[in-house]
């Protein structure tokens, strides 16, 4: 493994809904990742990916998204909870790649207007991510009553989330390093 190659951990914003509060969450996570030396990140807004809807899967792979997933050592998915589930567009985007995800770490940040902080969408995402070859970590971040956590301009109003994100990221970084070593150095047999 090249020790000098930084980790790359993009943050996927998993909703295209107008007025989405999850944007503030995703931007916060990007800022927190950016504080760490040796880790690169970027925000991937699924609303900005022009994927067709008259086909699905790897046939509609978006080149820039594919390159970002190939380069990634881990992913953060920020997902609001819609009717206990994730957005259809997020699934559509995730399904467009496969080899790019294999044996890479993923952490989920759940967002909800209610008190449960996206716990149900996180549980529903886990089997999907597993089938895509991603390795889920056991730390999540739950943004409950998200409208009270951020001001209208995106300013964080509850500093406790910084520590929660820090714990989440430390586990994600560790898993990303381990899995990179495994992908690049440890053969299947």
């Amino acid at each position, binding site marked *: 493994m090249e020790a000098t190659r930084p980790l790359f951990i993009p943050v996927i914003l998993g909703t295209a809904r107008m007025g989405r509060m999850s944007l503030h969450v995703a931007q916060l996570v990007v800022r927190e990742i950016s504080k760490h030396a040796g880790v690169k990140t970027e925000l991937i807004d699924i609303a900005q990916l022009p994927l067709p809807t008259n086909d699905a*899967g*790897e*046939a509609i792979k978006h080149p820039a998204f594919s390159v970002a997933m190939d380069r990634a050592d881990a992913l953060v998915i920020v997902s609001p909870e819609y009717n206990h589930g994730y957005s259809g567009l997020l699934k559509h985007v995730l399904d467009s790649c496969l*080899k790019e995800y294999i*044996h890479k770490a993923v952490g989920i940040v759940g967002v909800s207007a209610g008190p449960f902080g996206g716990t149900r969408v996180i549980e529903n995402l886990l089997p999907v991510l597993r089938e895509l070859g991603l390795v889920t970590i056991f730390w999540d971040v739950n943004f409950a009553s998200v409208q009270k956590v951020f001001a209208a301009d995106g300013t964080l109003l509850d500093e406790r989330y910084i520590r929660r994100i820090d714990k989440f990221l430390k586990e994600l970084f560790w898993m990303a390093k381990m899995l990179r070593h495994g992908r*690049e*150095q440890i053969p299947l047999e």
Partner: protein
Amino acid sequence: MAKTADKMICPRCGVEMNHHCDKLVYGTGSQEAELQENTQIDPVIDPLLGGVISEFHTCPKCGTAACRNA
């Protein structure tokens, strides 16, 4: 289970890649066609498993991922 013996070569670095994963991929129409087009190998449905075994490889130098049918 069928296994391809020769090492994949990284398209970016030209070094031997590490084969770290096999995955059972079920045919889903155009996705299967895409896989076939990418690998230039006819997908062989494993009669016991009901899908195509894909090998996943990663470059130890640059981290590029690649796959092919087993």
